[in-house]
């Protein structure tokens, strides 16, 4: 009886940790409401606005100045074992790089320019992305077959309820959002979409 109760408790715990109920952006690393460079103290405003958003982006009501940098990519010339086709960051990844490439001040939002608060430390990726996991490349069944060390995104589980393609990719592309939930929906450190304990996040796609 006790054993069965233990199993029941563990199964619930497992589900809870997977689904990550009750987490949100407030209090997360992306909650900038207390920053000196955000005098309005709003959480969403640094990135989003309900009106007069930046146009021409694959972005939800974007409110932050977007970087125009050209990036050094992680390509097959960097790694001979890289089989994907690299391209300049696109989609939502460009939004992330608006702050994380260090070329645009964090406080350049809501139409403001000339800000002075730039990202520093480990969060700063710079414009040289050759030492960062590649993004904005198509990750499909064909790539998985060519590489041999990747799961088939069309069929392999993401661990989040559906397939890799469905849960982690955007238009079949790996983007920042494949690993990171910017709104901290999972509550995992570094805003990861799920825990990387046991490198579980890495091994969701990498069949090693």
């Amino acid at each position, binding site marked *: 009886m006790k054993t069965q109760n233990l199993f029941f408790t563990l199964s619930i715990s497992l589900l809870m940790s997977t689904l990550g109920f009750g987490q949100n952006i407030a209090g997360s690393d992306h909650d900038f409401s207390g920053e000196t460079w955000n005098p309005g103290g709003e959480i969403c405003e640094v990135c989003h606005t309900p009106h007069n958003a930046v146009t021409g982006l694959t972005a939800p009501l974007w409110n932050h100045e977007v970087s125009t940098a050209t990036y050094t990519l992680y390509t097959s010339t960097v*790694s001979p074992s*890289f089989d994907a086709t690299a391209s300049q960051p696109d989609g939502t990844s460009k939004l992330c790089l608006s702050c994380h490439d260090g070329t645009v001040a964090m406080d350049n939002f809501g139409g403001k320019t000339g800000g002075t608060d730039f990202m520093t430390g*480990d969060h700063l990726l710079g414009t040289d992305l050759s030492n960062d996991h590649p993004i904005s490349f198509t990750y499909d069944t064909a790539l998985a077959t060519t590489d041999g060390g990747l799961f088939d995104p069309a069929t392999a589980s993401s661990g989040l309820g559906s397939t890799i393609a469905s849960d982690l990719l955007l238009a079949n592309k790996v983007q920042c959002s494949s690993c990171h939930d910017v709104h901290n929906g999972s509550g995992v450190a570094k805003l990861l979409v799920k825990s990387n304990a*046991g490198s579980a996040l890495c*091994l969701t796609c990498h069949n090693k």
Partner: protein
Amino acid sequence: MRNLTITIVVFLFCLPVLMNSQSIINTKHNLSITSPGTVKATSESEICIFCHTPHNSSPRAPLWNKNATGTTYILYNSSTLDAVPGQPDGSSILCLSCHDGTIALGDVVSRPTSIAMTNTMTASGDLTTDLSNDHPVSFTYDAALATMDGELKTPPLLNVELDKNSKMQCTSCHDPHKDTNSKFLLASNEYSALCFSCHDKTYWSSSTHNTSTKTWNGTGTDPWSHLESAYANVSQNACANCHDSHNANGKPRLLKSLLEENNCLDCHNGNVANENIQTELAKVYRHNVYGYTGVHDPIEAISATTKHVECQDCHNPHASNANTASAPFVNGFSKGVSGVNQAGNAVSEATYTYEICYKCHAGNSWAPAPAFSRIINQNNVRLEFEPSNPSFHPVVSPRNNSEITSNLITPNTASTVLYCTDCHASNNSASVGPHGSIYPQILKMQYVTTDNTSESATNYELCYSCHNRNNIINDNNTFSEHKKHIVKEKAPCSICHDPHGISSTQGNSINNSNLINFRTGIVTPSSSGILRYEDTGVGTGRCYLTCHGENHNPQSYGGMGGMGKR
């Protein structure tokens, strides 16, 4: 309902295990706290982090999370290496981030402090910065290399993966993420299949070292103790019987022992191979393979210029087999060995066994001196066995001498050809080679050479194994005074006979027929100052000499008049 819940829960818990049965998770390269190995983190749970990081990696792909060691490595080299290994590059230099032992396993770029670890890398995993005892890496492996070497396969290679620059790297043999074949090998190395993806050793397929299913009998030292996980028999271990891919004691050619003979004798000691050669090599008279280390070289001049002897001088471990041949052709145990032919020219592969002996016993400056001083002295056995000589033992060609052949014991006939090893071989041994003997000159049987020796079947056992003793000591069909000399005067055979032969460059058919070449220490000139033998026909001749106080000046034998002084 409760049963269903339990089933689902059990399935959920088992799922990761099932999915990861061939994953890095279950290998020693999982250095996290969940590692199945003994070298593991005390609390770190991430696996990939010990090598990779998604952001701000070292400048080295793939997203490498270890700093460069900056080390200059000592590279592998050998006299037979045709490849040109450079300082490790490509994937190899990444592997060395841990495997050269200079950077702690927990020191990663993405963590401000070193990840705390339990235990350190094992000795077998630590290649150190001295890579001279490891298989070479980071060299271009192309068709040109295969052609130059002559014993390498031409790419594309089966199972082995060269990198995009056609270089051999650690990853040519190892997949660091997958350990289904032990030691992270790309394919099983049973029967050295992985080695033979590249290495193409001449005659290996018919070699006993390839085919033998012999196992260690459990006595003495385990011949495979140098292997972490040895297979049961010789055939399965194949290259690994003698070679180590990493941390080899014998650096050039990656032999398991620096002492050449030990690579052979830990099996050829009665504990694996049929015959106990180690015992033979412990005898007083021997080819002393223990006496030299680091002198033999596979590319040395075939006619050896520096005195030495190793097993490899007479045996090719990649080619040896149990096939038997007839004299003078080489037996399987000496297949694929270089030699010097009767014309004195080096040959890469001996056809006749005596050609192997000639590498050292044919006039080399350091060649052993003849056992006794004689009228004619010669230490070049190649010249002694020359078929144009006035007399010789039939090593190179048959010796059709009617005076002798009528006294031979079956199966010897006028057409018999002998191996050197018919006389020079281990005594009382199943092995036919001249490994070691209790008798001088590594003779197979007793051959007493001391003056005043009582004639007996055993004292001259070697001679009597071919020559009919009864005929000799009763003066039948032979020198009519044998009985007087060897029975009554107790003169050993060697006083008058020079067993190899007398070179035509020094002797002639009058004075040196019948292998006559007196020992000058015992046989001295006659009262006329003459010391020689003269052949005057079949069964007749005369001698000028003094021996045992007898003056022959001359003394004739045989012929119509029988024995009589002139």
